[in-house]
């Protein structure tokens, strides 16, 4: 790890140089919101937003991704046999990702890169990416990252971390991938570790929203599952799925075939535990047929099953997107507090 100082004029010139060796991605304003998008040469990543509307997960795990192609034409060789499509796994530079979103990839990796099975699409995309993070000096009002195992200056999952210091960026180069990228951009000015640390401390203190999750691991799964508060918590939910799509850690997907004429493909699409079809059996039987059961599943997964399964904290990085975007104001911070404080047989405030 080493410290750099990058004048903003050098930053712009360096970004220019990344086009070529890298496919460059960064926040871009489209309509009302910023989202991550592929940038063309001459475009600069727009760092004026607090965070992108959608998380950065789609860069590695697209909302729709082609898994296989095939032909159903019996006159063609290998008809009905699945073929992997040719894909671009050349290096990607992801500029301006927030530390919470970068940390989220390290949690999602636990699902897609397991000792038994490897999801090649996710793993190859992730391996292709170099993440240049942008630390948060002004956290959003709904952020609770410091309660969710990360923070505004967290370096987990990042290759370079930038901190905005007015006319220049203070940077930490964290990995080999990061070294390669700063070399390609030509950023070399010596930095100031002390100033970086001071900014990090100040930013951490600004995240005032705190959530207690320490007792979740010690709870009995079936006690929480049978707790009386789920109907009340889920009452306002309209099962729109917004929370799951905006979430940087939600990873559930569907597999669908699509055919046009004799040519077809198999697709992997984001899915959501908020929808009844997610779990409906062929017979019509549905283990999570009721809204409250689905809301319970989402929070139990994030705050209990994941905690128990991996011992890596909660399945949430505290980005606050689901809190700000939920149309009925369901707040994961409140749900976490209720679950964390729940004792069977005792009254609980909902």
């Amino acid at each position, binding site marked *: 790890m080493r410290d750099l100082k990058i004048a903003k004029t050098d930053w712009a010139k360096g970004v220019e140089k990344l086009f070529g060796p890298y496919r460059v991605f960064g926040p871009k304003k489209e309509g009302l919101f910023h989202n991550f998008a592929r940038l063309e040469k001459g475009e600069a990543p727009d760092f004026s937003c607090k965070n992108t509307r959608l998380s950065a997960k789609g860069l590695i795990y697209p909302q729709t991704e082609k*898994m*296989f192609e*095939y032909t*159903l034409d019996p006159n063609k060789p290998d*008809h*009905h*046999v*699945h073929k*992997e499509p040719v894909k671009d796994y050349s290096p990607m530079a992801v500029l301006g990702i927030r530390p919470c979103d970068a940390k989220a990839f390290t949690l999602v990796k636990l*699902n*897609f890169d*397991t000792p*038994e*099975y*490897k*999801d*090649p699409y996710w*793993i*190859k995309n992730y391996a292709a990416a170099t993440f240049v993070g942008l630390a948060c000096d002004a956290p959003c009002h709904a952020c609770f990252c410091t309660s969710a195992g990360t923070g505004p200056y967290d370096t987990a999952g990042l290759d370079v971390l930038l901190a905005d210091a007015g006319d220049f960026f203070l940077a930490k180069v964290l990995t080999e991938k990061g070294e390669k990228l700063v070399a390609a951009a030509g950023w070399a000015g010596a930095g100031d570790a002390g100033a970086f640390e001071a900014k990090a401390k100040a930013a951490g203190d600004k995240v005032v929203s705190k959530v207690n999750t320490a007792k979740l691991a010690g709870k009995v*799964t*079936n006690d929480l*599952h049978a707790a009386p508060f789920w109907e009340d918590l889920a009452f306002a939910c309209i099962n729109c799925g917004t929370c799951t799509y905006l979430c940087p850690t939600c*990873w*559930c*997907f*569907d*597999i*669908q*075939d699509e*055919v046009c004429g004799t040519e*077809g493909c*198999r697709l992997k699409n984001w*899915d959501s*535990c908020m929808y009844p079809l*997610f*779990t*409906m*059996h*062929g*017979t019509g*039987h549905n*283990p*999570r047929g009721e809204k409250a*059961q689905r809301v319970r*599943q989402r929070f*139990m*997964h994030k705050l*209990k*099953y*994941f905690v*128990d*399964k991996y011992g890596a904290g909660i399945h949430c990085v505290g980005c606050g997107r689901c809190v700000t975007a939920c149309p009925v104001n369901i707040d994961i911070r409140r749900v976490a507090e209720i679950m964390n404080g729940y004792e069977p047989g005792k009254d609980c405030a909902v």
Partner: protein
Amino acid sequence: MQNPYFPYPVRIDEVITETEDKNLKTFKFVFLDPGDEKKFAYTPGQFGELSVTGKGEIPIGIASSPTEKGFVKFTVNKVGVVSTALHNMVPGDIMGIRGPMGNWYPWERMRGKNIVIVGGGFAFTTLRSSIVWLLDPANRKNYGDIHVIYGARSPGMLLYRDELMEWERRDDIHMHITVDRADTPDWKYNVGFVPAVTEAKAPPGDADTFAIVCGPPIMIKFTQPVLDKLGYSHDQIIMSLENRMKCGIGMCGRCNIGMEFVCKDGPVFTLNQLKKTPREY
């Protein structure tokens, strides 16, 4: 990197209509690349994803036994888009299979023990795999008494009828076939629901006896109290679950019962294990 989503290409070798309502067919598949058959090495109790190119995939228990070489067999009930498309396919058609997936019945743990197999309806597929495997001379000597209680709505709805009759004639397996109602006067086996026949015919539970239960939810619900009454410990009641699945490898997130995935951590669980989960199946 091996792609766990890639279906091994197979050719349909034979299609057998199993039941009088024609809703259950057994498909015999041959791998296009014989090397894939070795990669598909399985143990009774596991399942595979049948991949109908252009339609999608369905998770189905493997009905053939590892002792049967050169093919794999699956029995499929016609319910949805993929199974309906599959039912319309004919020998020679090309499709795919992924797997084998999930865990299997605890054959090592049950070594030297008596086994009571309780099955109902079309959930008998992995139980057929198990019985064929158990009756193989190489395996039969490793297990004690074997009882099979298998029920269907009517004689015409029983799967694998020829084999059932063959097993009836053997003396190294105790068959207790039953139907909810016998519509032919020459029916010479049991009449009654599976739980009642289990109560009447199954040996009492003890340290040396395991029960494997696989069937529709209603059968499982009413069989469990019978097994309790017979003295089976919940650690020796083995159950095989079903849930909606897509990936089959514990990634897509829908088949979980608590932190366990039915596809990867199951489908086989002891009743004791299940009692610790929210049992969302």
